[in-house]
């Protein structure tokens, strides 16, 4: 029987390799926030309150580009709808927790932590305290994320504008989906989303950021019907 702290520690170790991408991503997020003209306190507040790299970057990019709050908030919602899936999968292991503990652990559910927890917990179904594993991954990622965005905010004020750091935004997101490029069905959905965004780019209120994913998800839904 593994003790709680051992399980927690296993969670920490499992996400360590992800730091290779999480830390640079955090630095970029902080630096871009400053580059886009936001107050450093505001940039950091997104790390603490939103705590999700992709949504933080998109949120700041949209607001600095003149989008309304409603569009920025809605697009954050669309991006984060993937968490529903994570929650649904992890809830099997978190069922026995009290409501308060569920509320606390939810804050720490992030992509990399979910991926590792899902992998480990599926192979260790009889673990007595599985939530310590989830917590180990989440808390580790949380600390690294806070520290790396703060470093990015500090670095960002020194990075000259001629470097065009804004180009790091599309590159960062490309890096996030690059592993899915080997799956043809995913590539199809990506192309639908990408071309939709080019066509819809000048639609009012920057709504392309919400409409393109919706178009692509409808395409995914239709594709799934044909696959069967």
């Amino acid at each position, binding site marked *: 029987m593994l003790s709680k702290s051992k399980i927690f520690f296993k969670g920490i170790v499992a996400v360590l390799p992800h730091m*290779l*991408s999480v830390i*640079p991503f955090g630095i970029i997020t902080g630096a871009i926030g400053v580059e886009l003209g936001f107050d450093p306190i505001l940039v950091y507040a997104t790390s603490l*309150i*939103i705590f999700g790299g*992709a*949504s933080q970057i*998109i*949120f700041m990019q949209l607001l600095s580009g003149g989008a309304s709050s409603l569009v920025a*908030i809605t697009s*954050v*919602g*669309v*991006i*984060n*709808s*993937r*968490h*529903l*899936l994570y*929650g*649904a999968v*992890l*809830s099997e292991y*978190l069922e026995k927790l009290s409501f308060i503990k*569920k*509320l606390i652990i*939810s*804050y720490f559910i992030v992509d990399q932590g979910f991926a590792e927890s899902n992998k480990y917990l599926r192979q260790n179904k009889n673990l007595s305290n599985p939530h310590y594993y989830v917590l180990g991954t989440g808390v580790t990622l949380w600390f690294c994320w806070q520290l790396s965005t703060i470093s990015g905010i500090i670095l960002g004020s020194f990075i000259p504008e001629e470097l*065009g750091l804004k*180009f*790091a*935004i*599309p*590159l960062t*997101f*490309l*890096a*996030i*989906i*690059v592993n*899915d*490029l080997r799956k043809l*069905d*995913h590539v199809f959905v990506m192309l*639908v*989303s*990408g071309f939709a*965004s080019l066509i819809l*780019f000048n639609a009012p209120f920057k709504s*392309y*950021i919400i409409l*393109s*994913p*919706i178009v*692509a*998800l409808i395409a*995914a*839904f239709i594709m*799934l019907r044909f696959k069967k």
Partner: protein
Amino acid sequence: MTWFSIIVSGIVTYFSRMAMVALIDREMLGTKVKEVLNYVPAAVFPAIIFPGVFFNDFGFLVEITDPKIYGAIVALVVGFYSRSVIATIVSGLLSYWFIIFFLLR
């Protein structure tokens, strides 16, 4: 106003994490919905990538010779073969900088 948006976005994000864990029975999400949710990253991120590469700061399509396009192609190829997040970003930025600082000067 920005503070307000950050806080509401934070609540929305937190809700997306918490809903299935604490509020909703997971059986509520049918297999169909789960299958479609799998594609959320593929549906969301290209809508940021494509405009970031193919539009300039003024909202116009860039020319086919734009350095961003070549930076993105390098990043795509490097990323595909290396499967590394850092290699993807760094190769894209370096090739972009190489073009704007050496080739275009």
